[in-house]
């Protein structure tokens, strides 16, 4: 008998699950609706929220999908959106998924967390609540998310979660509009002793491509400055950087766990390899989960590779994958100039650290 954390257990299970093609980890995008209108969001739909709501799966349909996923080996899932807490039937869905023995991570902007809600959540706590924090001022929230008051509500939500002893992590997406506040966000997470991650990778979506994010995301020059600013947090081992530079060249681009041991069900009920890939998809509610999973695995084998990326000198520094290339270029096999520039900056930064 061995007691393990969920993270530790999932890591150890990966190899076995990959060999047997068992989907042990996944995400459920319960809704595309959100009470924020973040300019960089890849989920947001153009339709009015009421129309989006009509197209959503019902609670019963989500519970059916989750039951099949659990029967087919799912151990842990994350619930996301949109904002999952915006669903009036969120509690019903959440409680049913807990009863299935699924360990749950909840992704939320925390603005809808109230004393009443957190008391209920604390009765059956998730493994983790991942809160997105987009700034440290009402101005930034207004500018980036369309609602200034959301800042105070997010902070209040985080404090309520912590008050009730719920394991909480913070994350942020860094774009031009909140770049200046990144140090303050990071310091806030540190002051609460919370695990914190920041990402600069902002993705487009299939409907609009990258047209709406091109002027939002930080430039390669700004990315370099950010690397310098955060070097003490993220870069302290020259050997790791050296290894990184030599890693992965020639390896397939589709080398993550997507559609191997992990899965995603989007708000339309489509089973996809990951949140970024809207296609290929299959339909578990129509064909059954097992058939949908097997078909998805067959479909990803046909995703073409971008030869230029596979053998690129900067491969180890690049976050490239077919999903990102598709969102950037509309094709799986075409390189992205933006990703190329970011990878080059990472290499330059790594070299400067190694030569110190």
């Amino acid at each position, binding site marked *: 008998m061995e007691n393990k954390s969920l993270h530790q257990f999932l890591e150890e299970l990966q190899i076995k699950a990959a060999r047997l093609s068992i989907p*042990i980890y996944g995400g459920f995008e319960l809704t595309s609706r959100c009470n924020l209108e973040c300019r960089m969001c890849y989920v947001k739909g153009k339709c009015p929220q009421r129309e989006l709501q009509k197209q959503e799966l019902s609670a019963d349909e989500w519970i059916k999908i989750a039951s099949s996923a659990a029967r087919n080996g799912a*151990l842990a899932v994350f619930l996301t959106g949109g904002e999952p807490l915006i669903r009036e039937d969120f509690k019903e869905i959440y409680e049913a998924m807990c009863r299935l023995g699924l360990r749950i991570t909840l992704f939320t902007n925390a603005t809808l967390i109230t004393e009443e809600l957190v008391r209920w959540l604390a009765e059956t706590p998730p493994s983790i609540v991942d809160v997105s924090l987009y700034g440290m001022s009402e101005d930034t929230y207004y500018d980036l998310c369309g609602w200034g008051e959301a800042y105070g509500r997010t902070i209040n939500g985080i404090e309520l979660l912590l008050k009730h002893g719920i394991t909480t992590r913070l994350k942020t997406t860094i774009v031009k509009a909140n770049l200046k506040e990144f140090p303050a966000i990071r310091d806030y997470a540190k002051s609460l002793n919370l695990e914190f991650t920041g990402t600069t990778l902002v993705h487009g979506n299939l409907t609009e491509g990258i047209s709406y994010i091109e002027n939002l995301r930080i430039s390669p020059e700004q990315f370099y400055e950010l690397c310098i600013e955060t070097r003490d947090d993220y870069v302290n081992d020259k050997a790791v950087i050296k290894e990184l530079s030599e890693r992965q060249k020639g390896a397939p681009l589709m080398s993550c766990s997507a559609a191997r041991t992990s899965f995603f069900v989007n708000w339309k009920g489509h089973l996809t390899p990951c949140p970024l890939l809207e296609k290929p998809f299959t339909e578990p509610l129509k064909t059954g989960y097992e058939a949908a999973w097997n078909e998805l695995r067959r479909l990803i084998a046909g995703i073409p590779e971008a030869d230029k990326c596979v053998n690129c000198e900067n491969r180890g520094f690049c976050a490239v994958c077919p999903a990102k290339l598709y969102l950037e270029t509309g094709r799986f096999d075409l390189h992205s100039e933006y990703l190329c520039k970011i990878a080059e900056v990472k290499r330059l930064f790594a070299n400067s650290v190694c030569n110190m």
Partner: protein
Amino acid sequence: MGLKDNFMLREIAGTWVVVPIGQRVIDFNGLINLSETGAFIWSRLSQGESPEDILLDIVENYDVDKETAARDLGEFLAELKEAGIYE
């Protein structure tokens, strides 16, 4: 004596794991990895079988003598008690 409630035994990718559910997550936010024999014992315990009956089950189902099985079962139950899962 018996297992505390709100634990679920699951088999994932050929691996036995005990998952806390409901309020049990509050005092046990992790997972328990069990061997096949451990899972066998757990499932019998969860059905309310006594350690004496489980011992007979083990000897009947596994290639092991009663003395060794009794020692292993005792150790397993002690581990469960120590983890606050069996009382």
